[in-house]
């Protein structure tokens, strides 16, 4: 069995994929946390190449994060995707969101996945799980996704994109 290589992988220490103007993917982090001891101290997070999100700074899940006024105050990851070079080939994108949750239930993580038009998913991050999949049907247009930190204590590990 052979595994498909990712077209790109974005991580805290490698947030930038750029092949051409319309073949790029970029990760932005607008607010993450760290503490004084492993595994959430700054050095550990750097070594493990993860962002940490602390429950104390989780955003209100009842707000509308399509509104800039709300989004700008939220701990959030943004991903800008422009893969229009693949548009003519009828390709799609499978995006794997990698995470770890720090504590077992009831401390499930929670992330709100938004586009500029609205909420795409209210995703629970379960202790012991490590990823969820976002299937993007078309690469004809650029797309920005927003991942809003909305509960508990969790780590972001990275996003891998597979053009298929």
């Amino acid at each position: 069995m052979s595994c498909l290589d990712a077209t790109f992988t974005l991580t805290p220490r490698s947030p930038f994929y750029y092949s051409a103007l319309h073949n790029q993917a970029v990760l932005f982090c607008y607010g993450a946390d760290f503490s004084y001891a492993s595994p959430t101290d700054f050095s550990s997070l750097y070594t493990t190449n993860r962002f940490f999100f602390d429950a104390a700074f989780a955003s209100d899940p009842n707000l509308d994060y399509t509104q800039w006024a709300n989004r700008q105050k939220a701990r959030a990851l943004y991903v800008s995707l422009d893969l229009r070079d693949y548009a003519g080939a009828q390709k799609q994108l499978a995006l794997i969101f990698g995470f770890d949750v720090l504590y077992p239930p009831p401390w499930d993580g929670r992330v709100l996945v938004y586009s500029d038009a609205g909420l795409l998913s209210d995703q629970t991050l379960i202790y012991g799980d490590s990823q969820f999949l976002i299937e993007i049907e078309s690469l004809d247009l650029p797309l920005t996704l927003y991942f809003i930190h909305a509960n508990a204590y969790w780590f972001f590990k990275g996003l891998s994109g597979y053009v298929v």
Partner: protein
Amino acid sequence: MPIIRVTKKQIEEANKARQAALKKDKEFRQHEEQRQRLIREAAATKEKVQPS
């Protein structure tokens, strides 16, 4: 594994909403211009940004 599906229609709506928000909200527009500037600069110095 949980799966979120983003349809072509949702992507079109997101682009429309984004254009409308950029037109309406000066702060958002400035933020996005800065983000695009960062991407352009990173593209120009790709070898420095992306560790080998």
